[in-house]
């Protein structure tokens, strides 16, 4: 109980750190600096890696859905999203519905 609360608050502090740091450096540091470019790359790769991992090698609830179902649902969501000029809400709804439908067929 306490350990869960401490973990969350630790993560909250670690997240706020970047927002607060942005406040401090907003007058001084050049955003073209190589360090920030690298940090941006790490952040993008990290989120992309986590996303790909959840889709390809899920744990928990999603593990019960078929792999092809998850992949097709992703493709449908991407298709709808881009065809409707990056409509995030409809894209999400399409992927959500597609996964449910495909998992039900199996």
């Amino acid at each position, binding site marked *: 109980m306490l350990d869960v609360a401490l973990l969350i608050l630790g993560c909250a502090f670690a997240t706020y750190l970047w927002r607060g740091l*942005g406040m401090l450096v907003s007058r001084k540091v050049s955003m073209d600096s190589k360090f920030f470019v690298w940090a941006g790359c790490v952040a993008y790769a990290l989120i992309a890696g986590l996303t790909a991992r959840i889709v390809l090698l899920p744990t928990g609830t999603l593990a019960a859905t078929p792999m092809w179902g998850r992949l097709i649902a992703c493709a449908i969501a991407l298709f709808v999203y881009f065809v409707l000029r990056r409509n995030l809400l409809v894209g999400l709804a399409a992927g959500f519905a597609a*996964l449910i439908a495909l998992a039900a067929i199996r």
Partner: protein
Amino acid sequence: MQPTSTSRYPDARAAFWAAARESIGVPSLVLAAGYLGFGALANGSAFPLWAALLSTATIFALPGQLAMLEMSIAGSVPVVVVITVSLTAARFLPMTVALLPILRSSGRPSWHLYAAVHLLAMTGWAASMRRCPELPVPQRLPWFVGFALTNWVACMVATATGYLLAESLPPLVRQGLVFIGPLYFLLILTGETRTRHGFVALACGAVAGPLIHLAAPQWSVILGGLIGGTLAFSLVEARKRA
């Protein structure tokens, strides 16, 4: 959908409420969809409802919250979880640096800004970058807070809803809800990435993450980011020089 450039409000209070109204539609709904999935996912883990709500209230960054949840399920060491979550939040630094010069006004105590940046998320950031420069300086921070605070409230409600619904929903719908989180990032990342560094990093990360997971599940999130990101950075820099 957007009010045309009648972006002059009589006072700061009016700016706050106008932004709140603008946020209630699609922007909050999209964010809330991701948190609905987070709530449902948290229900299947060792996290009680209060913990899911506490994380949305205090972290308020979905990639970090998902990473925290996934890593806790995988049994990672807490220190590693905190470091990884911190890395997923690194994007806030450039976002804050870009937005703050617009929001800052002389005569306002700086703790107002320090409190306000906690509400910074992708949606509110993008909207404020577009709308705030059109406003008189004293109305900009109220506009941002009105927009972002509405997002925050919507995410709290969605977290609780996802968590509570998950138990009563059929497994199929529950799986669909949990799937919204990764879908959200798939769409946002492919649709909103603008730089070459960003695209290459996405590709490298998407390959590195699952591969490393096969070898070392507890470390896959952080190593996938560091290795994939550094590889992408080196590739793009090397091509620039060539």
